């Protein structure tokens, strides 16, 4: 390589690195504010002492433990039910030669363009009529059936050779056994991909939980964080910074562990 080219490359790499740093700045600033004493929040002096006290204070200033529990239960419930329902539906669509499977599939796909948060008006009334307002089930119910999960699994199941299933039927295996031993294991990457996308979507969901909840015992993290940050705007930045980082930490850890799968599943997903 000629030296001029290497120099150009080096320069470009530096620019890219600086751009990435600049892009990441909002998170770094929050981090900086969170690990320094509240009295130093305005000065940004390099020699300010480090502290974890803000995290402790934030944790005690609002019921974050409860919020974490709520969000975890909520996300777990939604993702598990979504996967079970979608597996059943996709299997039926692919292998049962239903008379109206085309029409049913079209009905299902409609959900891809109308997301439940747009329909909060009527869903609020429905959940109220079911007596589930201000419950975790009430938040989760509209999301139980995911057109996107059905769509993904249908594509995957379609590609699985029929011969496998025929052989199993000849051996006397039940449908449920076939589903469990052939279809689900072969579609495992799709399950992981959808679960990651769904977890991050529902961990971050805000408007619908805000509308449908009004007590501490069911409020998820996003709503709790918003209530925590809103009233004393501009006053306790250190606490807000600590709380903000705290609430995003589980997702960040999940991302760092599953980095490759995350990026691949978002690529596959296209819809959050």
């Amino acid at each position: 390589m000629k030296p001029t080219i290497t120099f150009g490359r080096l320069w470009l790499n530096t620019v890219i690195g600086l751009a990435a740093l600049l892009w990441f700045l909002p998170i770094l600033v929050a981090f900086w504010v969170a690990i320094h004493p509240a009295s130093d929040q305005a000065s940004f002096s390099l020699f300010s002492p480090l502290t974890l006290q803000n995290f402790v204070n934030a944790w005690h200033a609002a019921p974050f433990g409860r919020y974490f529990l709520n969000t975890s239960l909520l996300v777990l419930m939604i993702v598990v039910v979504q996967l079970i329902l979608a597996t059943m539906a996709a299997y039926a669509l692919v292998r049962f030669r239903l008379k109206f499977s085309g029409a049913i599939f079209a009905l299902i796909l409609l959900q891809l363009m109308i997301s439940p948060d747009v329909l909060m008006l009527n869903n609020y009334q429905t959940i109220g009529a079911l007596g589930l307002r201000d419950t975790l089930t009430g938040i989760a119910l509209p999301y139980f059936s995911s057109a996107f999960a059905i769509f993904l699994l249908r594509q995957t199941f379609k590609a699985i050779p029929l011969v496998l299933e025929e052989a199993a039927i000849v051996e006397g295996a039940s449908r449920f056994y076939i589903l469990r031993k052939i279809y689900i294991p072969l579609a495992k990457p799709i399950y992981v991909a959808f679960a990651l996308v769904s977890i991050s979507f529902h961990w971050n969901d805000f408007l619908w939980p805000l509308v449908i909840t009004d007590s501490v015992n069911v409020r998820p993290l996003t709503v709790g964080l918003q209530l925590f940050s809103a009233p004393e705007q501009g006053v306790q930045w250190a606490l807000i910074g600590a709380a903000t980082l705290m609430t995003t930490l589980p997702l960040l850890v999940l991302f760092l562990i599953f980095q490759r799968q995350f990026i691949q599943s978002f690529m596959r997903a296209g819809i959050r």
Partner: protein
Amino acid sequence: MTSTILTVAPVRPSRLWSMQLYGYLLILPALSFLLLFTHYPAVATVWESLFSAARNGRPAHFVGLDNYLALLDDDIFIQSLWNNLRYALITIPLAVTLALLMALAVNRHMRANALVRTAFFIPSLLPMIAIANLWLFFYTPQLGLLNKLLALFSLPAINWLGEPGSALYCLMAVSVWREAGFFMIFYLAALQQIDPRLSEAAQIEGASRRYFFRRVQWPLLMPTTLFVLINASMNAFRIVDQVIAMTNGGPNNSSSLLLFYIYRTAFSFWDMPAAAAMTVVLLVILAAIALLKFNLLDKRAHYQ
């Protein structure tokens, strides 16, 4: 389709029938949740938008398109719609261009590659409420970093979120920050699928990077660009979290967006007919984008 389960053995009609039943039973749970929380509310919203509100014991009565006509006179609704349109027209091109630049930047042989990619991507993982808090550090009048920066050049402080002229743009910056890294992933995937022999051939022919991008990469990225543009438009009309967290639509409704105004009309003013009519407008917008998607995207999906 000669070999299916049904033809493994001669099938009696009753068995065929029970197969159908079995299949429908498997679909039933998923379908009923969809019907209850997607199809029913969509239809019910249209229906309710044609009725007046039930007030003081008087039942709701049919008013035809009156609720929609009232929307035309609702200045805040018109402003929210206009704001949303501006929001889409400004943030989408910015986010998509940045996404492409990021993907090109990461798709090179560089040692810090994974780190840079992570830095670009992480914002799209965070909850919008958390992101709003991060950006309030920049925007807040007294302690905010942007005003400190201005002070450094002895420029007067700006009340970023408090001025009708700047609040919406401040929200736009937040959206772009969150979305660009997300769209980068799709461009990155598409770039990595381009045959490496193309770039080798271009190098041998002595084509410049710019020429190679313009004549080879950009055309091959077209389906991705369409896909990203359409998804971005759908997202743009559903933005609400950062409005609630950062400005509450203010000042003077200058940062009110469509879904935010629906939320306020429904759950602060409790004006359900108006909110229903607005929801229908939003549904029509989303449906129009979806139709565009089916017509444009699915035809060109196999461009390569």
